């Protein structure tokens, strides 16, 4: 992993002092969890290393000390156990917020998520619900190799009964996470770990901007929510629509800026529920659509987006829809920048879209 993500400090991250409170993603997530632990005695946090140490990415730092060991605690290394136990806790009436240390390790817990958490409300006709928010860092660009870099969101968007949420800014991370915890459905909350500390542009050989220069790192104190199912307009433009989420929002924005393209960039924020109205309105306005994600291409969430745009906006389209994605290979450690959908891949797609 790159040095940017090695956080061995024992202290809880402290927000920048000053008139404006500027947080990075980790601090914003920590703040959301802190507030929800405070507000709702049914919220509990558990996962590998989340207690005393505060999580390998420090997202839960200081929370156990503040809220006690039965509210925030470490678990055995057993993802099946973590999710299964969370289902039972949800049935009791708690709101567990389990952390899966890396999205790559969610697979041992998949059956509990897909067959149990997702369907409990339906199969019991509301006798029982599983109101949990599974937090997990995901995505690549951190030299994490193939087992610390995956983007498995499509697996979850395919499952009826689950919601899938991916923030791309500290402001959104806090507001969306609070919404997820308050939601009565099971939610997968993927944290793009490449942008925990700064909004990555995709130009990996250029210095990384810290969050404090970004407008969306101003995070209000206290409780606020961002509704699930509402996309965010990153930039307004007439030339083309970009549909993106997570790290790729920032990459798309940087590439469009670099190329001088006036793009309508939508940060989807939530895959399920999806803001279809915003997507439709934007594509009908621009007539051109580029879909960007880091996950592998085949059967990725981009395929779903592409189908929706084709179904709903076909007569408004002036060029074929472009899908810019990772390749259908495992995430290669040394060749990670060859895999990553970076400026070249986005740039070529934009050129094709704007050809005539």
């Amino acid at each position, binding site marked *: 992993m790159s040095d940017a993500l090695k956080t061995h400090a024992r202290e809880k991250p402290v927000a920048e002092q000053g008139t404006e409170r500027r947080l990075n993603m980790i601090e914003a997530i920590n703040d959301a969890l802190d507030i929800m632990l405070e507000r709702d005695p049914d919220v509990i946090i558990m996962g590998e290393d989340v207690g005393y140490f505060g999580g390998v990415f420090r997202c839960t730092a200081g929370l156990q000390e503040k809220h006690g060991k039965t509210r925030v605690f470490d678990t055995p290394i057993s993802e099946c156990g973590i999710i*299964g136990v969370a289902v039972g806790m949800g049935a*009791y009436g708690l709101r567990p917020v389990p952390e899966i240390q890396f999205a790559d390790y969610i697979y041992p817990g998949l*059956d*509990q998520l897909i067959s149990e958490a997702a369907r409990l*409300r339906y199969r019991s006709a509301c006798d029982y619900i599983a109101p949990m928010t599974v937090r997990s860092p995901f995505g690549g660009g951190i030299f994490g190799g193939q087992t610390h870099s995956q983007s498995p969101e499509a697996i979850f968007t395919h499952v009826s009964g689950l919601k899938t949420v991916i923030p791309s800014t500290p402001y959104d991370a806090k507001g969306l996470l609070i919404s997820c915890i308050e939601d009565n459905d099971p939610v997968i909350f993927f944290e793009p770990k490449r942008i925990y500390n700064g909004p990555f542009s995709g130009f990996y050989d250029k210095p990384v901007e810290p969050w404090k220069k970004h407008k969306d790192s101003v995070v209000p104190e206290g409780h606020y929510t961002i509704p699930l199912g509402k996309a965010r307009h990153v930039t307004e433009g007439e030339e083309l629509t970009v549909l993106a989420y997570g790290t790729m929002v920032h990459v798309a924005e940087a590439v469009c800026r670099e190329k001088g393209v006036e793009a309508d960039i939508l940060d989807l924020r939530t895959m399920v529920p999806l803001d279809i109205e915003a997507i439709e309105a934007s594509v009908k306005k621009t007539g051109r659509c580029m879909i960007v994600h880091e996950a592998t291409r085949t059967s990725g969430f981009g395929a779903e987006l592409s189908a929706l745009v084709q179904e709903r906006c076909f007569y408004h389209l002036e060029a074929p829809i472009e899908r810019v994605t990772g390749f259908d290979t495992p995430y290669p450690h040394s060749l990670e920048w060859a895999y990553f959908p970076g400026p070249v891949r986005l740039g070529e797609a934009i050129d094709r879209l704007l050809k005539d």
Partner: protein
Amino acid sequence: MVDRPAGSNKPHLELHVPEPKFRPGDQADFSHIDIGEAGAQPRPDEACDAKETLPLCYDLIRVLGEDNKAHGAWDPKLDPETLRQMLQHFATVRAFDERMFRGQRQGKTSFYMKCTGEEATSVSAAMALASDDMVFPSYRQQGVLIARGYPMIEMINQIYSNKADKLKGRQLPIMYSSREHSFFSISGNLATQTPQAVGWAMASAIKNDSRIAATWVGEGSTAEGDFHSACTFATVYNAPVIINVINNQWAISSFSGFAGAERTTFAARALGYGLAGLRVDGNDPLAVYAAERWAANRARANQGPTLIEFFTYRAEGHSTSDDPSGYRSAQEREEWPLGDPINRLKNHLIELGEWDEDRQAAMDKEAAEKVKATTKEAEKNGILGHGLHHPFRTMFQDVYEELPWHLEEQAAQAKREREIKWPGEEPWS
């Protein structure tokens, strides 16, 4: 394959594939099973160190002897009224199983599963728990619902997936759910309920509640990872939970050896986790009650979780889709050395002078009549595939708390299809 030079004197490695002792046509002989003597097993203090249960993980806790009397330290000393109540639940469960099995054969539903021979492992265990202790059953614990007084008509409505089915026709028959009766929704995915029970128990402890949780899992399903996760979490957090393993010797056509029974007992699984473990004659209603009560007291007093193996025998087929004569000896059921739990309890009550064969016959008849009458009542709400089901619109409900746009669109599509297929009819009904 690697070519090796001939003449090597190393032994050829051999794979062991378990094989049950008897196959169809064989004479079953269970004399190799050491069933010990009723009353001979020590009963450690409920607050004992888990290690003290080690001998009980290999022994077999039994109370009812060949003489139909209760023996030893594990005798729960139940009063005759409670014993008659237990017997009544047994009669109801067996009559229910008979009728529902027949109902499936008559095409009234798609599927059914009996628990014949295993009634004590659910009825007697449930009677040893408090009525608001949360249970996470598998699919052969209909006895828990009966013992908890769940309305039988609701069970049948569920089995028929009819318009009165509280689960709206969404679950396979017998996969009941009742929050009111602290009975968790049953999953078709084996063993998933085990970590869920532990999670519920942990939640109860987090909230300083006094209710404990119990879960049931088949011996075959203990091979699933979920079971091992459940044991780990249970022990790590000292969760107030009881993990009941029902060793009925068979997992469909695979005998218990495929879950590891040739090498050790299922109760002994407890040892490696540091759980208390008990191995119990599952066909002895008094022993089942006593063991479950021991574990419940232990959990309730924060002394820790218990894994109980109930050693029993699946007398009937796995389900209505199974024909056990294809894989096991037909004599097994008769030769099973631990008898039938209903007969054993009946004979015990008779021995106590609190019961007789006439009253038993009357009780069986009454149970059969009650089930028959309730079935008729339930049939008024419909049987599977005969049109009396929940309204179609319910198909799209409860996927999420609120209906998202994509499901709304799909529901509109379903409605249009019905209007085309059956013009003039109310499409949602």
